[in-house]
């Protein structure tokens, strides 16, 4: 005689309506972000008629003709080199100025430090456009109008308020005791900054760098006016609009050119975001 026992099954998870709604909203939001990217990607392989006639259909072929045309017509090789040069130099210069400033402000206890920090914060109140004319006049007066050097020197000025405010907050999380023990062991200010503050503030530095690189890379108005139109000097963002014509724009070529100019910034983002995660882990272990 066999005995039968009731099957022991694991209780089925109860799907709560709120969770399902959350999933739907999250996927919908993700799709909303992907739709423009999808449109850009498929347009890069289409002629104008297909773009306007069937905007969201898959392209009929995967010819790289539009990419080659965009590269050639907008001289994107030179333009991307200029963008990389300007973005990297300006980002490095910003960090070189913001890190020591933030360290000093984070450790400052006096009223002067507070006042200077507020002064940096006030930089947010100046609209970028309002600075255009004085900046052009300054560039002319310095004899640096329509040079890459002036653009490189100017960019950090626009990025310093946010960089300093963010990095100061990160550096304030470093326990004062760590600095005191290092000083007792004979470390000078530079070593304290380099060996203690920089590693711990690395997530902040990576964040600030990502923000700055994106801003510098995408900057159009100032690089157009201050950098000028010369194909040897202009950035990718200034070169790209030369593919636009009021009477006959080839949107496939324009989409392909846009994708080409997006690639370096995506690569930089992927590299820096990984570094940021590593730095976060490193900081946690050290802590």
């Amino acid at each position, binding site marked *: 005689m066999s005995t039968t026992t009731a099957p022991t099954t694991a209780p089925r998870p109860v799907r709560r309506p709120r969770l399902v709604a959350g999933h739907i909203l999250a996927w919908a939001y993700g799709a909303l972000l992907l739709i423009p990217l999808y449109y850009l990607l498929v347009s890069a392989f289409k002629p104008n008629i297909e773009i306007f006639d069937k905007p969201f259909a898959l392209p009929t072929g995967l010819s790289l003709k539009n990419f080659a045309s965009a590269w050639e017509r907008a001289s994107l090789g030179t333009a991307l080199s200029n963008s990389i040069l300007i973005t990297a130099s300006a980002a490095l210069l910003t960090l070189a100025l913001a890190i020591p400033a933030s360290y000093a402000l984070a450790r400052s206890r006096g009223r002067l430090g507070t006042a200077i920090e507020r002064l940096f914060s006030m930089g947010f109140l100046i609209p970028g456009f309002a600075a255009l004319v004085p900046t052009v006049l300054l560039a002319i007066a310095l004899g640096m109008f329509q040079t890459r050097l002036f*653009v490189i020197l100017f960019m950090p000025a626009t990025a310093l308020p946010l960089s300093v405010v963010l990095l100061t907050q990160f550096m304030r999380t470093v326990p004062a005791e760590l600095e005191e023990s290092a000083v007792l062991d004979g470390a000078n200010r530079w070593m304290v900054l380099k060996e203690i503050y920089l590693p711990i503030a690395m997530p902040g530095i990576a964040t600030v760098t990502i923000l700055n690189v994106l801003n510098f890379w995408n900057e159009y108005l100032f690089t157009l*006016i201050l950098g000028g*139109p010369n194909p040897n000097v202009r950035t990718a963002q200034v070169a790209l609009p030369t593919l636009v014509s009021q009477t006959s724009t080839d949107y496939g070529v324009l989409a392909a050119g846009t994708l080409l100019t997006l690639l370096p910034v995506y690569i930089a983002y992927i590299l820096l975001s990984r570094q940021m995660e590593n730095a976060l882990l490193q900081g946690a272990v050290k802590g």
Partner: protein
Amino acid sequence: MRNNRLTGIALAVGLILPLAACSGGSSDNSDELVVQSIWTKGTAEGDALAKMIKEFTAETGTKVTWLDTGESLADVFETSVAGGSEADIVLTNLAEKTNNWVTNGAVVDMAPYIDQWGLTDSFKPDTVDQWKDSDGKLIGLPYSGFTWPAWYNMDLLKQVGVDEVPATTDELIDLAGKLRDAGIAPMSIGGNDWTGQKLFLQIAQMYATPEVAHKTFQEGDFCAQPDIKKGVALFTQLRDAGVFIDDAEGYSADAMNTQYYTGKAAIMSAGSWAFGSADLSAETAAATKLSGFPLPSGSSWDKPTAYNGYTGVGVLLSKNGAKKADAAGAFIKMLYSDDTITDFVSTANLIPAVESEAKSTNPLLSQAVTDLDARVDYAVMPDTAVPGAVADPMIRATSIAFAPGNDVDTICKAIDDAYASAG
């Protein structure tokens, strides 16, 4: 290791900065010219210019830097003037900002140079006058012109039993009904951009004399002028009769072209710059008859109207260029030479402002050059009258006109607001 990295960065910055100091813009060296153009590299006109520049340098030894700034030309040029580094020669259209360039010193009056460079007798009649500003100063030398007719796809018209382009607006309304019944959109138009604005103003001047149209476009107050108000009423009548493509107020010029090129619309109003479009199939081009926009009864015009002009692209000389008048003159003379003009006509379908024997193989351009004058009257081109500052707000106002439900007074108010906003 970390010290090595820091040293590397310092070295990189040290190398980068001197490299970054390279500049664009004009130099004082008369062996070098800087040419800035609205034509960009890779376009038919840009390629013809690039070829000419190469030949010019080979012949004269003068180095030419070409700034192909495209649509941002006016902004970039004006800022460069402030820095004294403007291009020597500018190839651009006459519109908005360009109109004031002699007055504000951005370019020099070119009148003395026409004789000096031996170009006086080269130009077609009246083309030079189109480049004079309100003070009579010559802003630039005309280089290319345009015609802006209505395009009719005769294959589609024949499909609905119509063999001729409509000559009157009543015939147009009748045709629109037949086309709609056959599932074909009648007239494609970029209601939300400059193509819509031009068509609106073309219809608005149907009952007005050229003088009245010019004055009204210049000063505004559309509904105070009875003939113009009557034209606006005609526009709403055509719109409500379904002459324009559905949702025309949301269409751009490119969307308009696509509807016509794909045979979804039977009519469009587009300029000669589209004759050589890569998207226009040989079949559609062959089926296309160029004519004017039909007239209402009581119109002040004798024939259906189109636009034309020689303000497409002109040759302007900056103060920097005037300092190197010999080199600039040599360049400009070569630009107007038979060989260069032939090249521009044959490869870029350009309509030259100078007398020329050059022929294009493009069937639409040939049709425009040989037949269009007999079919149409040329209406007042708004760009020569509408103040530059009004142009953009006016396009927003005319897009309202294409939206169903907006009556004559609403449209007039929107346009008057555009003039008021520009001061």
